[in-house]
């Protein structure tokens, strides 16, 4: 008996060892090499010994050479013109740069272009490029390179999701080696901001090589160079020693992909990463209370709202106002978002160009009931609220809370949720095919300018299926104001137009105005020199270092 057992144990151990050795050898084999699906640039960067380091001797020295950053999603593409996602854009923005950029207050500043001129008709933008800037593959940044990028952007055979966002670009023209003109089909007031936000400049060699195919070799002018991208695992960047600006202090950045938010928190707490994006609000207290970490909660460009379709009882603005009064936004922000939100004072975030604060719909059940009664629904009514799950911070819980709040004024809400593709398919249907009455949605343009939110959400031309104006809002005055504002070059006049539009929209209440979502980033305290832009969408590690 004993012998038999020991023999079977031996057999078992052998089997296990074989399996384990197989597994581990596979692992070490692949782990060791890393599956580089994208290769580093083949052309060796031109290293000029004579490059003078413009840095003062007081520049801090980083105590650690490798920075590990946890992000929640894998990159979809490193194509500079194929970007759709804020976080991915944030990663590749370390490789590619834009012609213009923002200062920390959100003002447009020169970047790859040293200065610019706008023609009086608002149709031609002349940009004077910085000289001596080189791409990672050694080619020079000049007017031809910029033109190649603009041409690719407008080429209809190239997959450019944000094409319309940049504005009605007609094309580019080379004036001289360092001067380029970008022409628009019609005036587009937010163009400079759009230029700063969207048009990443890639090496002309790469553009030539890939043409209209997806670029998988990211070569830009940025402070970091692309090293590798292991799908689903990590993206590695290394410092560009020949960077035209101040030299990056950290030698290597590893963007580690950790999809689960709880695990991301654990990775930070365990010290496996130095910085983490988008942590769950539920962990805010815990991370804040931990002396080892710094917590950043900048506000984002994304407003969260419930769009009400103009049908049934919701067609009455008094009803829509009533619903706005019935929801206690600050309680939701405090208890469900743990403070990671700012109550909306307009349909756009406070930091947007064109923001003008309105009188808030503060929580008031009596007022809500009175309005409902006036509209002829003293007993309330039934509606269907469509909401995504896991798309926005605590979206499901917020929908549940709204449902509960509305039940207090007799409005019975049936919640309906779908996976994201079905959700998008549902909200892009024409009004008469929609199977819901209200939808919880977030809207976060890449540019902090009122145009992108107001025009996208309240211009009647943007109603689905053409666009994604979720409330199917239609008001000729608002349409006119928004169109004028889009073309108006004078900033003062533009602000005024947006103020007028905002006022009408706010009183019409096509949304239940909820909040602007905030980000929750956290990192090791020793990580210094982070640059967080005013819209909170982008974090830069260019000047970061470990103390």
């Amino acid at each position, binding site marked *: 008996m004993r012998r038999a057992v020991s023999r079977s144990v031996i057999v078992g151990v052998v089997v296990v060892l074989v399996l384990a050795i197989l597994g581990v050898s596979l692992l070490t084999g692949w782990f060791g090499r890393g599956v580089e699906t994208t290769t580093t640039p083949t052309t060796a960067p031109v290293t000029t010994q004579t490059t003078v380091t413009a840095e003062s001797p007081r520049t801090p020295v980083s105590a650690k050479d490798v920075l590990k950053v946890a992000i929640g999603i894998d990159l979809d593409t490193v194509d500079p013109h194929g970007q759709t996602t804020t976080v991915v854009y944030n990663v590749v923005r370390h490789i590619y740069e834009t012609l213009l950029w923002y200062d920390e207050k959100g003002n447009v500043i020169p970047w790859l272009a040293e200065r610019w001129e706008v023609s009086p008709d608002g149709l031609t933008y002349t940009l004077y490029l910085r000289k001596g800037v080189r791409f990672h593959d050694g080619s020079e940044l000049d007017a031809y390179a910029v033109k190649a990028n603009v041409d690719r952007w407008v080429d209809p055979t190239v997959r450019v999701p944000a094409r319309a966002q940049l504005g009605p670009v007609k094309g580019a023209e080379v004036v001289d080696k360092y001067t380029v003109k970008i022409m628009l089909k019609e005036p587009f007031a937010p163009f400079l901001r759009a230029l700063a936000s969207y048009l990443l400049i890639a090496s002309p060699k790469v553009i030539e090589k890939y043409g209209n195919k997806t670029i998988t070799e990211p070569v830009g002018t940025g402070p970091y160079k692309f090293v590798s991208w292991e799908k689903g695992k990590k993206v590695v960047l290394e410092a560009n020693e020949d960077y035209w600006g101040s030299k990056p202090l950290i030698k290597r950045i590893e963007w580690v992909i950790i999809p689960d*938010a*709880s695990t991301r928190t654990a990775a930070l707490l365990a010290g496996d990463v130095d910085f983490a994006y988008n942590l*769950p609000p*539920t*962990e805010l*207290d*815990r991370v804040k209370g931990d002396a080892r970490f710094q917590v950043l909660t900048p506000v984002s460009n994304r407003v969260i709202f419930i769009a009400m379709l103009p049908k049934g009882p919701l067609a009455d603005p008094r009803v829509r106002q009533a619903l706005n009064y019935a929801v*206690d936004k600050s*309680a*939701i922000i*405090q*208890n*469900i978002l743990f403070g990671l939100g700012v109550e909306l004072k307009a349909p756009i975030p406070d930091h947007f160009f064109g923001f003008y604060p309105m009188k808030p719909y503060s929580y008031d059940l009596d007022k809500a009931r009175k309005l409902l009664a006036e509209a002829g629904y003293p007993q309330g009514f039934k509606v269907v609220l469509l909401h995504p*799950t*896991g798309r926005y911070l605590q979206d*499901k*819980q917020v*929908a*549940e*809370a709204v*449902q*509960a709040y509305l039940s207090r004024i007799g409005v019975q809400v049936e*919640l*309906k*949720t*779908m*996976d994201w*593709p*079905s959700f998008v398919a549902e909200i892009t249907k024409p009004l008469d095919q929609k199977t819901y009455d209200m939808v919880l949605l977030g809207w976060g343009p890449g540019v902090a300018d009122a145009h992108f939110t107001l025009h996208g959400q309240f211009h009647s031309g943007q109603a689905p299926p053409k666009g994604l104006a979720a409330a199917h809002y239609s008001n000729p005055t608002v349409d006119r104001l928004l169109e004028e504002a889009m073309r108006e070059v004078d900033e003062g006049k533009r602000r005024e137009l947006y103020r007028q539009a905002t006022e009408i929209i706010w009183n019409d209440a096509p949304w239940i105005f909820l909040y602007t979502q905030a980000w929750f980033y956290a990192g090791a305290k020793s990580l210094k020199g982070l640059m967080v832009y005013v819209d909170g969408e982008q974090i830069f590690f260019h000047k970061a270092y470990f103390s």
Partner: protein
Amino acid sequence: MTLLHKVREARRRRIREQWEVFKSNKLAYIGLYILVIMAVISVIGPYIAPRDPYEFDLSKARLPPSLEHPLGADELGRDILSRILVGARYTFGLSVLSVIAGASIGTLLGLISGYRGGLWDTVIQRVNDILLAFPTILLAIALVAFLGQGVHSLVIAIAVSSMPVYVRLVRASVLQVVTEDYVVAAKMLGLSEWSIMVKHILPNVMAPVLVQLSYHMGLAILIASALGFLGLGVPPPSPEWGAMIGSGRVYLFRSPHIVVFPGLVISITIIAFNMVGDGLRESLDPKVRALVRRL
């Protein structure tokens, strides 16, 4: 005493013996008790719940267990005890319904496949292979996309994904049984195919089906909660247990009671299903029963 009587008597005696064996297995007996309690709760849950399971109060969000809320309050300040009591019908009903649906269709197909043979068998087996190869997650996503998110989609997804096992199980048993004397005799008597299948074959292949059924019901609860993890579960605010731990998951470290209590009842229910399954396997196994009878 007619032959029919004798057969009935024998069947009754067999059932009595099976019950004796089952009862002698303490764990199985306890498991059965737990399941009966769960079944009762799923019927009367809403009437014994101390509070409205949907009544929310953000000021009470995440309150730890207290006299007022014996199991604490959830992320929206709802009473967890009440939610568990009311949620029983969703979770319990979901697992029982889906598995019984899958098992009965699977059993039927398995019967036809094994008894008819030929083209029927070939077609059913190939389709079955395809279904077996299908990832449950794909099925769930497709159903949720087509039918909308809800208990019905989950039930169908779990039913369809559990069905192929029964087809195989029953077919294999039928193949063993069709050559037995009583089936041959029934054929000679000129009984219709259906009555042979239902009266003579079915009772003799039910044992493995029943055992599998009880294990599957436990598994169904886990599948439901796994789909909840992917956002495909029962939509809010329904207090289905899997959905409760799914949405409370992010509070695991912050306010563990939100996850721990629903998790606990889930585990207990699954364990009970498994214990009953073990007991059934023992009592329905003719070998074990023969041993008991011989003594």
